């Protein structure tokens, strides 16, 4: 893989030492947070770098009093709704932009793409009012529906479908398959890898949303993990180790998910960069 030959002897020791030191520095904020989350309340500020006492009580407090369990559930529900909705809407519109031919297709597609130039931050003042008018503050639909369709997803699915052989559609039409049957039985199975990457991407971006849940959630019960951590921060001075424990609990699901999906994630992240 790498051109350089593997180092030997003293250079090998030096190399591992350097890697070890850098790894420690990178993990240092995680290390201190874990140590803090596992210490009993009174012992936090003595020797904050050394794990000299241990308890699971603080983690339990974060789960119950800090409501992390509830926040994780909310985040999971919202992220699943967003992911399913984005996959469905992207398949439908991606199909319409690749397999069908009709007047105005080019103009519509450019209009779709141009919505990618509008940053989230430019729309949220008005979106908060819209969600308020709909009576969707503090609700799952309020958290999820604004993100149920994206031009990015449409673009991804369109590209994948354009790479399918054009004869497929003709063959299916001769067999009498309508659009829905063709989509279900031919097109969707063939672009499954793209849909997997899209699903992973939309799940992660929904899970990591910070600003939006903070804007439309006033009821603690409806916090996602991210806005829940913001609410938890208010008690940072009174019970710092509970907030640290909450931070660890909030991070664990994504750490596990990324370890499981490591390969797919790297593929998804690098697709744009390498092909450029």
């Amino acid at each position, binding site marked *: *893989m*790498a*051109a*350089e030959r*593997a180092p030997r002897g003293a250079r090998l020791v030096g*190399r591992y030492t350097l*890697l070890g030191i850098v*790894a420690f520095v990178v993990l240092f*904020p995680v290390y*201190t947070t874990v140590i803090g989350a596992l210490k009993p309340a009174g012992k936090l500020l003595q020797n*904050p*770098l050394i794990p000299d006492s241990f308890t699971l009580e603080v983690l339990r407090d974060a789960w119950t009093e800090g409501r992390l369990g509830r926040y994780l559930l909310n985040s999971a529900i919202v992220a699943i709704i967003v992911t399913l909705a984005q996959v469905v*809407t992207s398949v439908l519109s991606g*199909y*319409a932009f690749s397999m*069908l*031919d*009709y007047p105005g297709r080019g103009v519509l597609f450019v209009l*779709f793409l141009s919505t990618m*130039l*509008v*940053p*989230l*931050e*430019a*729309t949220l*003042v*008005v*979106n908060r*009012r*819209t969600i308020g008018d709909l009576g969707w503050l503090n609700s799952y639909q309020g958290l999820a529906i*604004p*993100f*149920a*369709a*994206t031009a990015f997803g449409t673009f991804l699915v369109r590209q994948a479908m354009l790479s399918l052989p054009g004869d497929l559609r003709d063959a299916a039409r001769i067999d009498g398959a309508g*659009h829905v049957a063709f989509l279900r039985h031919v097109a969707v199975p063939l672009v499954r890898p793209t849909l997997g990457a899209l699903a992973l991407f939309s799940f992660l971006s929904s899970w*990591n949303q*910070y*600003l939006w849940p903070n*804007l439309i959630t006033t009821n603690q019960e409806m916090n996602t993990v*991210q806005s829940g*951590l*913001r609410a938890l921060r208010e008690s*940072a001075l009174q019970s*710092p180790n509970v*907030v*640290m424990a*909450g*931070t660890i609990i*909030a*991070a664990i699901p*994504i*750490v596990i998910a990324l370890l499981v999906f490591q390969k797919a994630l*790297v593929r998804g*992240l*690098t697709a*744009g*960069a*390498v092909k450029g």
Partner: protein
Amino acid sequence: MASRVSARQRWRQLPAALALLAPSIVILGAFVVYPLVRAVVLGRQRCGVTGQSCRTVGWGQYGDVFVSQEFQNALWVTVRFALITVPLGLVLGVALAVLAHKPLSGIAVFRTIFSSTVATSVAVASLMWLFLLQPDVGVLANVGWLNELIPTLKRPGLLRDPATALWSVALSSVWAGLGFTFILVTAGLQGIPEDLHEAAAIDGATGSRRFWKITLPLLGPTLLFVVIVLTTRAFQAYGEVDLLTDGGPQPGDTTTTLTYLTYGRDSLIAGDDGLRSTSAVLLFLVLLALSMIQLRLIGRRVHYGSD
């Protein structure tokens, strides 16, 4: 495909196409296009704290807000934030990737560690840094010898000292983005053909010479992509400011970025949807200008590459 379809057949496909596009059009229309247009209109108004009782001031409000001291400060804070986080994030990401790009046993463990911060959301990363830097309950401020070495840790605290606050927030942001940069640059390094390095080594080129003359130029497209992503992120940074400093220390709004000015709880214009819209639209224009520059850079590179 298109050439084989007659005009009449094309019109016949229109209803099906519109039906398929309808869900996306409704969502994008209601939550991307409409709010942008509405924000442009709202940006001419001032509103009461309740969000109602808006009165129109006029288009001049855009100019007034843009030249206001608060907006100029936020714009400058945002630019400085980008000027810190983008180069630092890029250099550290490349350094980690080069360091881990060696055929050693166990290197996979180090690669996983170096990419691990990709798993932290902005809230998780910022809270970890809050407990590192906070002057009362933070870790660093309570380590005796470190505290004597750097008194600022305790009084007033890195996040409360106007000289260090933006750097501290930026450092947290760089750390959170490090895993992402590492993954991208590692993939870029793996795409560089091995025989180029071997040929250069046979010709007597040293390791550092090969890095500057072969590795870095061939990483160009990857690095450009990383710079674009990091810049866009820097201009949209919100969570780290909200959690670490609330836009302060005050007075001076030392870490009030454009997004914090628009959406922050402690922002001067919080509660006035009119002024927030003005600020949001101006933020959109700034980001649009940034996108145009980025598209030009990409366009030039693609052109250059195809020659």
